């Protein structure tokens, strides 16, 4: 029974982080935006949800939407100065944003009790609910959201809009010369990506039922990046796979602690291994487990069929 509950726990984590990873894939995999501050938007969503649920009677689904809106809003503010910047400057700025936001919630006790953290009521709850039931409810909620997010990013990227995103990624000057307003596209992607990360944050907050600033370190951003790189940038199925594998590994490392005496603390070991793994992946398989597939719209399929027929 404990194993079932534990597996469900892993599944919930997978689902939440898959949403965040999909958002990063949209930004980086498809549009080439190196967002090194993902945790900032995750944090914003988590804290917005927590604060709203603590102080108001607003139902959870509206609180989640507010979390998304706040994250998108912060994404918009960040995008104003940041998106015109060169990729390394964008990385530095987004990284810095993550740190600054964390300091804000850590310091402003009036917001969410600073370092003491804030308790978050679970979204769906009834009296007498067992742990198993609570897990199942969360799986339902998280995976419902994940499916919606997945459909959204697939629709966005498997379309002419997705084609433009790829063009901006490949050569933004050429894309501009062909009439695409790169700032507009980058801003839209960044805001949607931020909103999705905020959704993940809100779901995380209500699942953990407690959040504090120390749960939003740059490690979170890094973990999400590994998911995208392992799974395959610009392949949404790949990113789902990446999220699953990374989470399994992370949770697995914690279990090993109880069964294998290692000379090294498993959590440290996990991150050391992650780091080395990422470097090797970048060197030998930067396109990840599932490669990017060519864009296929109905029109392109039509061309393909016509070609196949004419070559017979």
């Amino acid at each position: 029974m404990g194993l079932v509950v534990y597996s469900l726990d892993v599944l919930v984590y997978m689902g939440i982080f898959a949403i965040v990873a999909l958002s990063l894939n949209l930004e980086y995999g498809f549009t080439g935006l190196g967002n090194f501050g993902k945790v900032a938007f995750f944090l914003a969503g988590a804290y917005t949800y927590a604060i709203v649920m603590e102080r108001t009677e607003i139902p959870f689904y509206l609180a989640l939407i507010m979390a998304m809106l706040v994250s998108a809003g912060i994404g918009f503010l960040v995008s104003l100065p940041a998106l015109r910047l060169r990729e390394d400057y964008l990385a530095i700025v987004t990284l810095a944003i993550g740190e600054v936001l964390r300091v804000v919630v850590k310091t402003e006790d009036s917001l969410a009790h600073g370092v003491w953290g804030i308790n978050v009521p679970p979204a769906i709850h009834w009296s007498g609910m067992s742990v198993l039931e609570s897990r199942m409810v969360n799986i339902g909620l998280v995976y419902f959201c994940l499916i919606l997010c997945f459909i959204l990013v697939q629709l966005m990227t498997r379309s002419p809009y997705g084609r433009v995103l790829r063009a901006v990624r490949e050569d933004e000057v050429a894309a501009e010369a062909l009439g695409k307003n790169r700032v507009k596209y980058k801003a839209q992607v960044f805001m949607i990506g931020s909103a999705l990360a905020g959704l993940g944050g809100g779901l995380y907050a209500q699942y953990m039922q407690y959040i504090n600033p120390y749960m939003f370190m740059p490690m979170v951003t890094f973990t999400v990046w590994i998911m995208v790189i392992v799974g395959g940038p610009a392949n949404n199925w790949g990113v789902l796979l990446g999220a699953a594998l990374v989470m399994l590994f992370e949770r697995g490392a914690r279990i090993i602690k109880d069964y294998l005496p290692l000379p090294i603390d498993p959590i440290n070991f996990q991150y050391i291994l992650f780091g080395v793994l990422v470097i090797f992946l970048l060197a030998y398989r930067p396109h990840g487990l599932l490669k990017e597939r060519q864009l296929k719209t109905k029109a392109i399929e039509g061309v393909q069929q016509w070609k196949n027929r004419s070559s017979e």
Partner: protein
Amino acid sequence: MEESILRVKEVGKHFGGLWAVNRASLDVARGSITALVGPNGSGKTTLFNVVFGLHKPDEGCVYFNGERIDHLAPHQVYAKGIVHAFQIPRLFYRLTVLDNMLLAARGHKGDGLLNSVVFRQGWQAQERELADKALELLNLLELDHLTLSPAGELSGGQRKLLEIGRALMASPVLLLLDEPAAGVNPNLGRKIFERIELFRQRGLSFFIIEHRLEILFDFADWVYVMDRGKIAVEGKPKEVAKDSTFYKVYLGD
């Protein structure tokens, strides 16, 4: 002189104290093939970059159909009808040849976020039409057998052709071509210019930078010779070819 579709007026552009373009003025007549020639480093590409909006001029103005465009961003200049093809092709190498062409299309409804995600019917049909147009152009450029190949698999000459094909796909009013015949064999170069002439007859205007003078002069209506940022000589190709300044510019004093 016929009506001027593009007017460059006393444009200057400097980089760190060096004036790449120094008070250059010229006119491109509507429906013409106007050439911009000159030795390397004379500022031709910089002038093109100013026209299509990559750089803002430090001095002077650029007019298109009587409207000032020098303060516009490249995508806005594109919207006005000016399309630029780069000297070294800036293709989207990981995307297919067809994708590259479709991206150049003007007014693709699918470019909008809402349309792409929600109102999908709006662009499906349009994309089919655009694909047909793209295939037609690719056929003309003899690239149609590579339609679904990634642009990165094309040879140098083919990339050049695709760059031009993409620009044509954009339904331009004025096409800025930066060395369309560079790096391709003379036969292909001539073929390219024959295609250009074809499109000129359909109403397009061309402003072309080119080094292959022996081909260029057979097709151009008017030639501007640039030297160290300024326009040194201008006129019909036959006249310019006889002008002594022209030779001085190219061979050095």
